[in-house]
């Protein structure tokens, strides 16, 4: 062609424009192409038209013009509701039971659907893993479905493709494998808690007997499994019954915040310490931990020990209890503490429990079983069951063997079903490099995931994974309860579930419903399967399907496997890896609700800090926000320090789930990647860490700067002894001050008895500070996300916040959590100062905010002593100012918005409404049925999310309502009651069940 071009150009002069070399060459092919592509331009209209031809043309044109009037509509599905779907009443929500899985443990859920759009997720009150409560991750998981950053299309080698092309390609490529029996085929899944998926994997392996199945998930139960092997020679899973325990010792176990079943455990724990007049039963929680957790914050006595000391503590306690024969000398500083704890636990034989954290070494788990055995816990406060996961094997070993096989060229097809191993594999297993090599060598690599993440970009095929609200599935709760997962909506994008992928791999291409339905049919084996299946879908679980407790005896010689020291690399400073309260293992990293959720205790948002105790910080000469470089066995990571009271000395805590390089605009480039230090030998803790101050700083953003109560009467705390003496004595020094006395100007406004008087009671004694209420409120009330910079300016929008106060020594402080929604004051100071009357009082006692009347003077916020009002400094709901994620302007995000709650515009004040939309729905319902609203009929979003039922809402004018009874408790107190604002939200004080044998100086 070059030759042709130069020939054409010869003899031409002047400027000649050309669009392509083809045009320039003016070849025959180009002319044909041009004619085909642009027929009109290529064939000029003939101008020689006679009358006859003109009339034909015009007649034809007229006829065509007429035809456009009756053209065919495009083939689109529109939903006019001429035949309304069964049960759908426009404007009324529907509730469906479903479920999800977090790191291998199922949670039963109830999802709210409004006109076909799921808008809210809560715990399933029938499901034993939650009993109606939830946690922030569950609450925020709905945002993952509507996340605009979610992967939306199938891609092949990074180019857009579709599911059809994928299934075609698979049927082509897999046929080659059926001959070899799947030689070189590998399946990599996360922890499998789904019986159906397990059955599919079995089918797959039957079809391809030479294929292999690997599992890896960064937050796994390898340690628990190994512990079971030591103690009983088999894998077991402990299920606790905290409601039956009067004495609980947690050794590094965050059973209220992160442990499998924590939502249920929090409720059981709270039920064991709800102090009311006439019922003073209160459990006592001892907590020994390295990094402060909400479990530690709830403890009556807490000890902060670095991981190796924690292990020694467990050994020492076990030796004192006589469950191991060696005698272990404990440091004198904690010996008396251990002695007192042991005495107390033994006294409550059969009513006490020792809880070992999942992150603790296997030996500790074995010691825990032995101690529980000695305490007579089994069958009472604790049951051992078969692991609920299907075919669980050691994840680290599994991934290691896969990587080795990949490296040695034994793998030619790899199917990664969920998970993100390229990001979260242990750093000494270089999975991503091996995967890159595998993919470039023209092997088959497929990755199914929610986001196009670090692993997806290294694979040939990426399949978007459905959200659990989009696909059929099943799982098992922490006690083994079989839980169906039913979808509420068609997949928003071209997404497919793991079940569908496995079905394709097995050459079946079945739909999700058929897969689950058929599997359950063979699994349940009942006479009335359809009825039972529908019942299970309705309930969200199969009744009585929890696993039966095992009767096991400790293995002979288990003690020999208990080493007296942990195998740590030498070095003074130890390191802990923990799941991040917001990002979890990284799965929720792109969830802006979770990112903006102040982490429990530290209240840091949008970042993962490095926790270090005040003493150690002083010793290492580092301060808050200092960027330090941590190195462990030659690997290095840099991140900002957060000096954390209550952290153990001599160790630092790193949080997983940050430092992402791919996976959405919220998570990318945020924080440090702790996986870079995590190795297969030290998944949770290690010694030998060295730390250097880089000299740089990174401002960690926290929603608050002050942890001291400044001697103020903002949260009442006392001991059980004080409570039993006189409940009013709890926080006694302030009660007199609190009494506003007789007013010289008696209030005329009272609550008429024929009106409702809405009120709330919050029991700070059982509030575990888990944040579920905060996220639930965000989901229910369309609360926008404002982004890190705006939070740094003090402009977060949460309508309910959890105030956390420390008291005592910074090394080991007491903590109290105090959720603060709007107090709905009867004499609300915000109301008289509004110049336009945008905040007014309703007859039933709500302090209402009228958004479209508000002009934004912010005077109401100033005059609110509780500072619960939030202001739209920008149009946050539209993602301003910096395209903050979670904007309700996005068409996908709009589907998430609760239609009963106004989206607020720029420049208006907003605040907690006591979920007025729920109140009014209940009132309308009651009115239709010509009755009063019943107690418990209205459940606010925070209340329904609260795992411990610390929040109670109801009608104050009904003396029998739950809230009235709580407010009649003598220990009930108003926040800043001395201001005479007469809040409708009141509190019950925090009471600690102190062991008198432990000196106050010893870990409070």
């Amino acid at each position, binding site marked *: 062609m070059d030759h042709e071009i130069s020939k054409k150009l010869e003899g031409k002069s002047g400027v000649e424009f050309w669009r392509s070399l083809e045009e320039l060459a003016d070849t025959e092919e180009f002319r044909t192409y041009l004619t085909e592509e642009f027929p009109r331009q290529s064939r000029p209209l003939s101008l020689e038209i006679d009358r006859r031809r003109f009339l034909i043309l015009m007649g034809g044109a007229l006829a065509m013009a007429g035809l456009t009037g009756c053209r065919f509509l495009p083939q689109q599905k529109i939903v006019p509701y001429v035949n309304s779907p069964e049960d759908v009443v426009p404007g009324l929500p529907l509730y469906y039971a479903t479920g999800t899985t977090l790191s291998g443990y199922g949670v039963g859920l109830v999802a709210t659907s409004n006109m076909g759009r799921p808008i809210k997720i809560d715990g399933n009150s029938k499901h034993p893993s939650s009993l109606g409560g939830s946690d922030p991750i569950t609450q925020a998981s709905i945002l993952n479905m509507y996340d605009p950053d979610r992967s939306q299309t199938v891609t092949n080698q990074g180019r857009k493709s579709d599911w059809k092309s994928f299934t075609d390609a698979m049927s082509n490529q897999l046929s080659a494998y059926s001959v070899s029996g799947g030689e070189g085929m590998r399946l990599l899944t996360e922890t499998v808690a789904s019986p159906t998926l397990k059955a599919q994997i079995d089918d797959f392996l039957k079809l391809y007997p030479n294929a292999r199945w690997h599992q890896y998930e960064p937050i796994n139960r390898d340690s628990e499994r190994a512990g079971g092997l030591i103690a009983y020679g088999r894998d077991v899973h402990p299920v606790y019954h905290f409601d039956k325990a009067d004495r609980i010792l947690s050794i590094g176990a965050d059973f209220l915040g992160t442990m499998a079943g924590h939502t249920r455990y929090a409720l059981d724990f709270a039920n064991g310490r709800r102090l009311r007049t006439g019922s003073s039963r209160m459990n006592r929680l001892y907590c020994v931990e390295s990094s402060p957790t909400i479990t530690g914050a709830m403890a009556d006595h807490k000890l902060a020990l670095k991981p190796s000391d924690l292990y020694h503590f467990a050994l020492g306690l076990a030796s004192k209890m006589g469950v191991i024969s060696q005698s272990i000398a404990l440091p004198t500083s904690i010996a008396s503490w251990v002695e007192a704890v042991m005495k107390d636990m033994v006294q409550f034989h059969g009513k006490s429990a020792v809880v070992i954290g999942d992150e603790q070494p296997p030996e500790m788990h074995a010691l825990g079983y032995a101690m529980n055995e000695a305490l007579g816990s089994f069958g009472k406060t604790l049951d051992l069951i078969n692991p609920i996961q299907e075919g669980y094997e050691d994840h680290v070993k599994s991934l290691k063997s896969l990587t080795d096989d990949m490296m040695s060229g034994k793998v030619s097809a790899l199917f990664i079903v969920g998970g993100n191993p390229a990001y979260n594999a242990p750093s000494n297993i270089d999975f991503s490099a091996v995967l890159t090599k595998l993919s470039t060598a023209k092997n088959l690599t497929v990755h199914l995931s929610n986001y196009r993440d670090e692993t997806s970009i290294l694979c040939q095929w990426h399949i978007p994974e459905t959200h659990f609200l989009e696909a059929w599935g099943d799982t098992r709760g922490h006690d083994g309860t079989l839980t169906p997962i039913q979808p509420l909506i068609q997949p928003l994008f071209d997404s497919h579930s793991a079940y569908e992928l496995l079905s394709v791999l097995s050459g079946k291409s079945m739909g999700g419903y058929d897969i689950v339905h058929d599997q359950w049919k063979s699994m349940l084996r009942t006479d009335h399967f359809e009825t039972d299946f529908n019942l299970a879908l309705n309930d969200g679980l199969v009744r009585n399907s929890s696993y039966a407790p095992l009767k096991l005896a400790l293995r002979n010689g288990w003690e020999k496997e208990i080493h007296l020291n942990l195998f740590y690399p030498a070095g003074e400073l130890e390191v802990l890896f923990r799941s991040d309260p917001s990002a979890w293992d990284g799965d929720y990293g792109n969830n802006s609700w979770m990112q903006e959720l102040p982490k429990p205790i530290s209240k840091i948002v949008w970042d993962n800090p490095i926790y270090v105790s005040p003493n150690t910080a002083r010793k290492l000469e580092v301060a808050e926000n200092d960027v330090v470089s941590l190195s462990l066995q030659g690997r290095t990571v840099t991140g900002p320090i957060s000096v954390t009271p209550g952290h153990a000395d001599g160790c630092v805590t790193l949080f997983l789930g940050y430092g992402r390089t791919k996976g959405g605009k919220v998570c990318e480039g945020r924080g440090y990647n702790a996986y870079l230090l995590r190795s297969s030998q030290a998944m949770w803790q290690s010694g030998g860490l060295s730390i250097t101050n880089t000299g740089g700083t990174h401002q960690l953003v926290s929603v*608050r*700067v002050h942890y*001291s109560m400044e001697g103020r009467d903002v949260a009442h705390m006392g001991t059980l002894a004080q409570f039993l003496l006189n409940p009013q004595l709890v926080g006694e020094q302030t009660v007199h001050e609190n009494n506003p006395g007789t007013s010289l100007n008696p209030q005329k406004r009272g609550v008429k008895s024929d009106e409702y008087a809405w009120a709330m009671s919050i029991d700070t004694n059982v509030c575990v500070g888990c944040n579920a209420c905060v996220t639930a409120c965000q989901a229910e009330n369309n609360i926008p996300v404002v982004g890190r910079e705006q939070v740094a300016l*003090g402009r977060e929008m949460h309508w309910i916040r959890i105030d956390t106060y420390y008291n005592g020594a910074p090394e080991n402080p007491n903590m109290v959590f105090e959720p603060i929604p709007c107090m709905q004051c009867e004499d609300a*100071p915000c109301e008289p100062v509004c110049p*336009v*009357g945008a905040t007014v009082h309703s007859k039933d006692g709500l302090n209402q905010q009228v958004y479209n009347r508000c002009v934004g003077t912010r005077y109401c916020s100033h005059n609110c*002593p509780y500072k619960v009002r939030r202001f739209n400094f920008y149009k946050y709901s539209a993602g301003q*100012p910096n395209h903050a994620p979670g904007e309700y302007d996005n068409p996908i995000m709009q589907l998430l918005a609760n239609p009963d709650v106004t989206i607020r515009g720029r*420049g208006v004040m907003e605040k907690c409404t006591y979920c007025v939309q729920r109140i009014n729905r209940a009132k309308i319902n009651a009115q239709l049925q010509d009755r009063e609203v019943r107690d418990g009929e209205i459940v606010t979003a925070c209340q329904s999310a609260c795992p411990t039922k610390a929040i109670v809402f109801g009608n104050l004018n009904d003396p029998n309502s739950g809230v009235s009874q709580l407010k009649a408790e003598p220990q009930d107190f108003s926040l800043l009651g001395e201001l005479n604002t007469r809040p409708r939200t009141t509190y019950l004080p925090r009471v600690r069940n102190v062991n008198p044998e432990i000196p106050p100086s010893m870990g409070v």
Partner: protein
Amino acid sequence: MKMRMDILENQPVETKRDALLEGEQTLETVTHKVSSIVFEWNKHPRAWYVSLLVAFAFLGALTVGVAWLFYKGVGVWGINIPVGWGLAIVNFEWWMAIGQSLLLLSAGLLLMRQQWRKSISRILESTAIFAVMCAGIFPILHLGRPWVFYWLMPLGPNILGLWPQFRSPLVWDVFAMSTFMVVATLYWYMGLIPDIACLRDRTKNPTVQIITGVLALGWRGSARHWRRYQTAYYIVAGLCVAMTISAYSFVSFDFAMSIIPGWHSTFLPVFYVAGAIFEGVAIALTIIIPLRAWYGLQSYITDVHIDWLSKYLLGSNMVIVYGYFAEAFYTWYGGDKYEKLVLRNQMFGHYAPLFWIMMACNLIAPLILWSPRLRRNITIVFIVSIFVNLGMWLERFISLITSLSRSYIPSTWGFYTPSIWEIAVFIGSIGLFLFLMCLFVRFIPLMSLTELKTLLANDEGGKNHSR
């Protein structure tokens, strides 16, 4: 006061030392000097042009600042929860204080028959009106939705369908400001009428003749005019005094009526009015001293005037000193832990450096004026006045910000740092003020001719001449 019509003659009048008029002054020299500033516009000193240039530059900052604010939202400022009012309200108070106190000074001195007010009254009144105009932009700008600012006005059910909420001090502010603008403009304009008539008679430009002719309201200077004029003038002056004190008390009610520790105090209105006078006197000095120098008005605004103003500064300083001590005493004596913390936080907290600068400016700096020798040094007086302006601005800043940033619940405590856009609007308001001052000097007699001439009459005793 009985007007003396018998001195309207071009007779040189001997002046004594320490007199309110210096040099050989006749009716003609006074008229000529004052009206020439208006008529001979091309003879304005370079300082006027420089001021105008600076004013335009600052106005540019205002335009950009306000445009950005309206485009993006009030979030471009550094305000947050808990500190929802920042520089905007600080500036509002500061400018309001200037306006209220200068008008109070002019009217109060008139009622007290202080002769020395006569050559500075026009400057005081004009400055007062301009300052309140500057103040007036801030309450609108600070709104979350500034385009509906008129919802605060009592336009009633016929227009808006709703009244404002009359219990709110912010609505009282609307009344205070609008009343102020009406009364102040009336008072200022009344003082202007005979002077405008004078301009009307002296100008040769037909356009100016028509404008001044309309504005002079047919003033002919008849004895009957003078008599009624004087009566009305005194009545309006009386109104001004009552109104300025109440209006600034209303501004302080924005704070005093709230329940925030440090704001919630019956003492606050008194303290605010006293502070306003202190600030007003200082700003009067800040404005008069350069004006006098640039326009060569030393014969009219003499060192005696500066001396008197300095003494007023000292007097109001003593009230302020009392105020600070009383506040501290009552905080201690009242025993309220929240109030105590506010005071402790002011003195030793995050904003403590500002507090001590303020104390130096408001308490220490004016003390040097006790020395008559230093008091007569114009440069020193000018510097002191600048210090007091700064000090009083800091006073507003500290009382606003420290109370808001440390209120009842420790977990809600926060900080406030002004953003560049707030500073732009503040500088812009200074630009607006400067611009209005330039216009004033250019178009309106800077001193009241009428009042100045009565000084001549009083000095001489007069002769029976008529024009």
